[in-house]
């Protein structure tokens, strides 16, 4: 009996052991290395490790070395929250780079807000959020979806298929697009087909044949795809097999990048599109160097680079700059100095951090090539400001985010003049 009690108390104290080393600046990496999301997130973990290595070679930060703390939340959402808490309280990291998909971010959000941590989220998402403790370096809907639709409409597309995996990002994006198509482009509801499929959907025969039927009825048709991850390969394979060519029915995707394309033969898919803020094929000195560094770091010259990686590069460099400017890694000080900071994009030009915690970035549209790369066929002339709250949903249009005085809030309602009672400050 006594023995068990001793063991129990010991284990509690063991849980409490705090790492007291303070001569490094700790950077948390919260990306799944196992489970369903590992396919996308492992690369991002490696990207952060590479950036840290590079920074340390260049002399570290504030005279200290950076130290990566990698954890595996295993694609398990409650585990994301647990690991976030561990990073912030037990490991006492100064900043966290991590998460993929909104549910993982939503899961850690209360943790970061409670413990006043700092998270950089690198993936495109549906918007409708602006937290004091998160910087969103991926695209908001107006930096990806709307420009893509504009481009296709310009190419003469009159009918639209909005196909997505049934979760929040596609639902919201499609809601926004539907309202944009109807109200701004004047498309009638007969010319819009909306379709949702479960995660990891693998049998696309019926849906692709429906799309074919819908799209071959005369008017020029395009598919706007918010299909997620695993389901894409069978979807594109089925498109190729049923002979849907990009010239007939182009598919524009928001979640398909170079890494997803590296998993299958793209030669039947030449001409299908994707909208991103970065493509590996972008022609610039800084991009060439980045690709070279990456291939060297990962020791595999067949690997590719993609948009979320660039988002981490931008986020990391901004954080480094902000820490240098603030002279400390204190979260509040760093946050204040983040606003207005600009770093070069890999595609040329500069990215700027806005006071709504979203970036100003250029939007590019690329066509898939047979070698799994994209040819950039269109780009915005300058950067587009990320809009946390879309203007195309009635409830969201009334809300703005601005974390500087006088608003100092992530969801300021312009009608009521209130920040609805969140536990902000």
């Amino acid at each position: 009996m006594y023995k068990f009690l001793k063991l129990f108390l010991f284990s509690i104290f063991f849980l409490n052991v705090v790492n007291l080393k303070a001569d490094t600046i700790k950077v948390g990496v919260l990306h799944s290395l196992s489970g369903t999301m590992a396919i996308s997130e492992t690369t991002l973990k490696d990207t952060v490790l590479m950036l840290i290595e590079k920074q340390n070679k260049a002399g570290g930060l504030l005279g200290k070395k950076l130290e990566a703390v990698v954890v595996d939340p295993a694609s398990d959402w409650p585990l994301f929250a647990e690991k976030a808490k561990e990073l912030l309280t037990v490991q006492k990291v100064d900043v966290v780079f991590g998460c993929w998909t909104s549910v993982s971010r939503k899961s850690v959000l209360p943790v970061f807000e409670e413990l006043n941590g700092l998270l950089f989220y690198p993936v495109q998402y549906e918007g409708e959020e602006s937290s004091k403790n998160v910087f969103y370096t991926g695209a908001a809907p107006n930096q990806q979806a709307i420009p893509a639709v504009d481009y296709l409409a310009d190419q003469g597309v009159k009918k639209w298929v909005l196909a997505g995996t049934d979760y929040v990002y596609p639902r919201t994006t499609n809601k926004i697009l539907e309202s944009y198509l109807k109200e701004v482009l004047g498309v009638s509801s007969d010319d819009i087909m909306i379709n949702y499929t479960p995660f990891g959907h693998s049998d696309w025969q019926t849906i692709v044949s429906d799309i074919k039927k819908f799209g071959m009825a005369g008017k020029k048709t395009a598919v706007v795809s918010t299909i997620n991850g695993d389901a894409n390969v069978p979807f594109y394979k089925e498109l190729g097999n049923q002979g849907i060519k990009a010239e007939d029915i182009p598919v524009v995707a928001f979640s398909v990048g170079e890494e997803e394309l590296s998993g299958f033969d793209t030669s039947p898919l030449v001409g299908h599109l994707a909208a991103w803020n970065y493509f590996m094929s972008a022609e610039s000195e800084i991009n060439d160097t980045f690709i070279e560094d990456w291939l060297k770091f990962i020791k595999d010259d067949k690997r590719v680079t993609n948009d979320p990686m660039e988002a981490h590069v931008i986020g990391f460099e901004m954080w480094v700059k902000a820490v240098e400017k603030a002279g400390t890694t204190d979260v509040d000080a760093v946050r204040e100095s983040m606003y207005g900071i600009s770093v070069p994009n890999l595609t040329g030009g500069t990215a700027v951090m806005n006071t709504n915690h979203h970036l100003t970035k250029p939007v590019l549209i690329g066509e898939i090539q047979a070698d799994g790369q994209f040819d950039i066929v269109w780009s915005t002339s300058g950067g587009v400001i990320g809009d946390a709250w879309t203007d195309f949903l009635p409830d969201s249009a009334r809300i703005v985010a601005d974390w500087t005085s006088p608003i100092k809030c992530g969801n300021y309602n312009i009608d009521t003049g209130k920040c609805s009672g969140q536990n902000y400050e």
Partner: protein
Amino acid sequence: MNKQLFENKKSLINNIYLLLGDTTGKYLITILIISIFLLPILHIYIPEESFFHISSYTISLLGKYLCFALLALSLDLIWGYTGILSLGHGAFFGLGGYMMGMHLMREIGDRGVYGNSELPDFMVFLNWEELPWFWYGFDSFLFASLMVILVPGLLAFIFSALAFGSRVTGVYFSIITQALVFTLMLAFFQNDFGFGGNNGLTDFKDILGKDISSKETRGALYSCSAIMLILGYLICRIIISSKIGNILVGIRDRENRMRFLGYNTTVFKIIIFTISAILAGIAGALYVPQVGIINPGEFSPIKSIEIVVWVALGGRGFLYGAIIGAIVVNVLKSYLTIISPEIWIIFLGLIFILVTIYLPNGLTDLRRIIKRNYGRK
């Protein structure tokens, strides 16, 4: 052949002996009772700098382990003692969690990002006009608590009455429980279903008017989890040490013989399955406020298989074994994911394999091995 899959060769008498000689269980309960008071006190009143302070991270982590332990216990009741393998116990856990999550969503009131007091955020931005009927009543904690028991209980009752009534047994029962949990996952993933789709329910603010992230709430939640685990353990103990327990073990070992002896085994099975589901639902309800999210991922068939793994690892057919199994696996998970994030899963897999091959009764065998080799002190 198939029946054989789900049988344990150990005799009835042997099991009763083991239950009477269950000292480990006594220790476990004593520790839990002490922790009900000790841990929250250490968490709330000891200053953070002190060595004895328990951080909010630790206490909610421990609370989470206890919820899993209760879940494992509920599975052990039907699998270990009645021989019914449910590969879908996550269904009841998740449903209990959702019921609590719905209440917590209603507690947010107008403090959501859109400031809408009528609808939760996820309904606002997907343009829902009004609250669906099945959300009515969840403003009340009492109603939600009732639902935590009723919904998983009713589902389990109907499901098991159908299945056991038509004498679905063995692997066929296991697979349809898997189908059940898979169905729930697909249904809850749908945004149209009205439970927030993949994002699930998050961003909780209060519970019973208290800030959900305050020290007092955390401590109280831990205590509740510990109390429920103890109660769950005692209920299971009472059931299995009574005559009913003997009948259950009889059903496990030779159901048809029990039936020939005149017992209506179906009724016993339905009752025990329903009790087990209610316990699982309570575990889910306590789990949600401590981890801060409930999402359809809880319904994934793999998670339900994991529950079976906890029980098997700890020692099937020993109540304390289930508790230990759940805690050990999850502690390992917590530690290994940071110590060796790249290959921890391989370690975990190896442990599962080695334990099954060398410790047929799970970790409970360790105690016997130690006893055999070193004798009593």
